[in-house]
């Protein structure tokens, strides 16, 4: 086997272009004759549009056309990709989501009009000349206020601001209540999972192009899933069939979920390109991204954990308010329900669980999936309440977790999922060793001498990745399948091109996917190239999110490569005049078992395309195969994390002095890339725990609308991580035995940080049981003043 197959830390080949400024991002693309759009956005959170007069603006220099809602009559709204059914069996309330505001504005940032002009500056100048008069209405921002009787309604045509009231598992409701009533001990915790702005380095960009001669539309867009955009926008918004619509997402500079969704700006540029007869480009500014990219998290939760005398978990009951923002973004309804409620068992045997989620409309930017999506919210509340229970019952937090670990697999949880495999004691053992937990007391003393408080936070996490079995998610309300696709094309001289429906926006697919194919054939990975991000040259796929690319997309690549190998063996058998059953493929050579006959990979691929000596009557020439892979189950990466902090008692400032992560991702294709994925996830999780917070005032103005007030984590905010993924229980149902690693860091780290800070404060004698994230110096200081 040549070097660089599965298990090798190959350097990321895409980094050469990224690090030398040679990436090809959407904003780098300029189409001959393109015009530019500037969107006039609402600076009022809730109001009636009384007057919208574009006549003066239309006369401004360079203006080609100004669009308002009137131009979109007969055009569909932005669709939602998931329908949740509520506790009573009714479908969620689903408001219309117009491309441009119709009569009313519902959040600061909503698009009201669009100016297409020769230059971006002219478009912006003209947008300022639009006469706009909005009658301000009271805004609803706080979720609990929003669901009260008589609260102003975000959508007048809906019954209330409650999108749905979801119960899971509804049949268990009474049994859970009863178990909690009769329990030896019940620990209750109320907490907030803070609202976040994803802030990928590259803001969103869209370029719509229309070819009048052919009637073909093209959209260049910063998307994590171009095929999904083609389907949603083509079928539901603009009525363009797939064969007339090409969507291209070239290099994309990070997404973290915020680039999954179909946004109105994409539909606008595609629509306007035809209407204006010119390509139309939009580049989002950072300020605009803060008020137009879907935001993340924003849950307010009460969780109760019932335990028996020995600390065995008896039941969990939660009540969560989940912010949807003003409209339903593509996957928004699924995040607090199927990506959250199904994870409430965590790594533990809890026989009875009931999760109630009230999804609420407010006059804020839509909220949707952000790295982890629902699973960080589940992990956070569960791992926090367990820590609190351990303290209340005087049981060591690690011991309490171990006492309740699931140890037998497969394990069907009471919340509808079945874990195929795992070993939570193994990752915990590994973690305790990595974090030198035994030496903590000594470090604590040393910190004390320097006047610092020290704390240790340990927790587990589990997530459902490899999203997702289509038939299952279909039953749960998904309006699409969640398989993945791959076409493997072998060229005549033996090189391969893998065309994948997955999309890489930083994950390193161009490096990792070739390792899989090269390993199967026994050739060098440099012989394999990856093509992604263009609906014109990749099979219909569902894109990248939910840590699915290797588990689902990689499995499709394996299936397609298996088909290639099967056919190649037939050709090799013919060339060597042997029986197909005797052909073996190793190190890029086909051999006949028990003989010294062999032909090289390149001889066979050449024969496939130059079929002079070829079984043409039995076999088509060529070597190209496509596979679609629909997973049988989710995958369940899990692990244990430890955070050690020092808190400055005078200022409340938290410093993370050490962070260790022991993850079980099943088999690993490229350990270096996995390290990087965990590092990135930890950075975002620590960002959520200590720094990041999207805050609205009561009028719906985003107070943290720039990096002056929205605190992004920087290198100096995070420690040198210790990460380990040597504990491996391979996934039992996909061909690679992989589970996915992209979100783990962001899911497992927030509770570790908060557990550590609470631990530090309690060790210093403060009566503090919880602090809501972000644990900014001022919040930690205030908590110390109170108890």
């Amino acid at each position, binding site marked *: 086997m040549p070097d660089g197959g599965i298990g090798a830390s190959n350097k990321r080949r895409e980094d050469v272009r990224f690090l030398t400024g040679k990436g090809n991002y959407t904003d780098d693309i300029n189409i001959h004759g393109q015009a530019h759009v500037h969107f006039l956005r609402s600076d009022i959170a809730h109001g009636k549009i009384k007057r919208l007069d574009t006549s003066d603006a239309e006369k401004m220099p360079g203006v080609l056309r100004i669009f308002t809602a009137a131009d979109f009559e007969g055009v569909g709204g932005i669709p939602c990709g998931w329908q949740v059914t509520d506790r009573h069996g009714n479908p969620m309330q689903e408001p219309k989501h117009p491309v441009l505001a119709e009569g009313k504005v519902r959040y600061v940032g909503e698009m009201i009009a669009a100016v297409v002009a020769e230059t971006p*500056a002219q478009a*912006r100048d003209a947008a*300022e000349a639009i006469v706009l008069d909005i009658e301000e209405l009271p805004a609803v921002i706080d979720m609990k206020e929003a669901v009260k009787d008589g609260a102003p309604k975000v959508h007048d045509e809906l019954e209330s601001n409650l999108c749905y009231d979801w119960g899971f598992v509804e049949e268990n409701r009474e049994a859970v209540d009863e178990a909690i009533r009769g329990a030896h001990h019940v620990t209750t915790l109320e907490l907030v999972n803070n609202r976040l702005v994803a802030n990928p380095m590259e803001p969103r960009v869209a370029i719509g192009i229309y070819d009048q001669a052919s009637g073909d539309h093209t959209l260049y867009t910063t998307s994590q899933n171009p095929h999904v955009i083609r389907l949603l926008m083509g079928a539901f918004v603009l009525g363009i069939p797939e064969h007339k619509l090409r969507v291209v997402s070239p290099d994309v500079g990070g997404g973290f979920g915020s680039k999954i969704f179909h946004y109105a700006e994409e539909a606008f540029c595609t629509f306007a390109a035809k209407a204006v007869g010119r390509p139309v480009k939009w580049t989002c500014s950072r*300020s605009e991204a803060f008020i137009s990219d879907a935001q993340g998290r924003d849950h307010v939760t009460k969780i109760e954990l019932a335990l028996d005398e020995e600390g065995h978990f008896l039941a969990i009951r939660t009540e969560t308010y989940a912010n949807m923002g003003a409209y339903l973004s593509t996957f928004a309804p699924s995040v607090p329900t199927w990506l959250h409620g199904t994870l409430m068992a965590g790594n533990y045997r809890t026989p009875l669980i009931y999760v109630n989620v009230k999804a609420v409309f407010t006059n804020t930017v839509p909220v949707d999936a952000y790295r982890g999506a629902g699973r960080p919210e589940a992990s956070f509340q569960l791992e926090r309440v367990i820590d609190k229970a351990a303290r209340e019952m005087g049981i060591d937090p690690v011991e309490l977790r171990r006492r309740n670990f699931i140890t037998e697999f497969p394990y069907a949880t009471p919340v509808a999922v079945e874990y195929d495999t795992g070993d939570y004691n193994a990752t915990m053992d590994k973690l305790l060793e990595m974090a030198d937990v035994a030496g903590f007391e000594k470090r604590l003393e040393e910190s004390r001498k320097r006047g610092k408080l020290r704390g240790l936070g340990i927790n587990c996490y589990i997530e459902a990745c490899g999203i997702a079995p289509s038939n299952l998610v279909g039953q749960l309300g998904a309006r699409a399948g969640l398989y993945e696709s791959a076409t493997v094309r072998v060229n005549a001289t033996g090189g391969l091109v893998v065309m994948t429906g997955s999309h890489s926006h930083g994950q390193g697919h161009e490096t990792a996917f070739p390792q899989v194919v090269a390993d199967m054939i026994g050739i060098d990975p440099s012989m394999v190239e990856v093509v992604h991000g263009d609906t014109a040259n990749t099979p219909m796929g569902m894109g990248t999110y939910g840590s699915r690319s290797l588990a689902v997309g990689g499995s499709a690549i394996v299936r397609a490569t298996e088909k290639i190998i099967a056919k190649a063996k037939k050709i090799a058998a013919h060339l060597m005049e042997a029986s197909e059953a005797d052909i073996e493929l190793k190190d890029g050579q086909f051999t006949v078992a028990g003989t010294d006959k062999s032909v090289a990979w390149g001889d066979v691929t050449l024969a496939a395309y130059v079929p002079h000596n070829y079984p043409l009557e039995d076999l088509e020439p060529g070597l190209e195969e496509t596979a679609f892979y629909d997973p049988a189950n989710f995958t369940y990466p899990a692990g244990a994390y430890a955070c050690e902090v020092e808190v400055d008692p*005078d*200022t409340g*400032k938290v410093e993370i002095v050490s962070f260790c992560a022991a993850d079980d991702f099943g088999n690993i294709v490229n350990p270096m890339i996995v390290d990087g994925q965990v590092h990135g996830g930890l950075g975002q999780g620590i960002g959520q725990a*200590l*720094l990041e*917070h999207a*805050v609205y005032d009561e009028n719906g103005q985003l*107070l*943290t609308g720039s*990096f*002056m*007030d*929205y*605190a*992004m984590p920087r290198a100096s905010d995070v420690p040198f991580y210790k990460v380990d993924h040597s504990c491996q229980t391979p996934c039992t149902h996909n061909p690679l035995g992989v589970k996915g690693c992209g979100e783990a860091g962001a899911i497992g780290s927030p509770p570790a940080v908060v557990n550590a800070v609470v631990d530090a404060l309690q060790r210093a004698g403060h009566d503090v049981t919880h602090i809501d994230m972000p644990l*900014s*110096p*001022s919040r930690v*200081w*205030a908590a110390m003043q109170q108890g």
Partner: protein
Amino acid sequence: MYNFEIERPGTIEEAVAALAAEEAQALGGGQTLIPTLKARLAAPAKLVSLAGIAEMKGVRSEDGAVVIGGGATHAEVAREAAETYPALAALAGGIGDPAVRNRGTIGGSLANNDPSACYPAAVLASGATITTNTRQIAADDFFQGMFTTALNDGEIITSVSFPVPQAANYQKFEQPASRFALVGVFVAKFADGVRVAVTGASEDGVFRWSEAEAALSADFSADAISGLSVSPEGMIGDLHGTPEYRAHLVKVLTGRAVSAA
């Protein structure tokens, strides 16, 4: 950004003449002004860049004072005042990031008088003198509340003269997002007394904490202020800290500055 004219004078005199034009504005390092223009929050008809004026550059020593050109960048000050006035150099070296420090100037920072900026604390605590194209202004008269100074329209800060204290230190507690000073305290000990200036905390901008000055002038040790407290009244309250928190930090940082001086 809206369209504007730009002039690049080579002398203070030319700059003053250029600034006499209607809606003209001085441009220092642009680290505050350019983002404001990009956000279309200001629309000067003409910018007069001070970057090419040689007589406004550099750091020099003069009669026991360190004199900094109004156009000297933060990076220059961090480098060139490191020996003559280390506390000031350290303050300059802690402003923003390298890009900000290589463009931003002391003149721009003082003219802007952001309530969270660092330099005003050093100027006030050092009892520095601000020299403009027309006059000299004592630090105690220069700062007149948030974003407000004694400067007249078109007046240019050409240099700032800092008397060098026997001991000094600046403690900056960073606002987590912007990394400006959530609270910053500059303590300077002179032969005739101690001056303590606080930035970031007050709704009136940079101020002197006179009780601490009196206590420290009698006994220059962190213990000397242990009995004092700062009232939260008039302190800034925002997402990043309540008035109580800021008032508390003033005392903590003053103590630390004294210990480190």
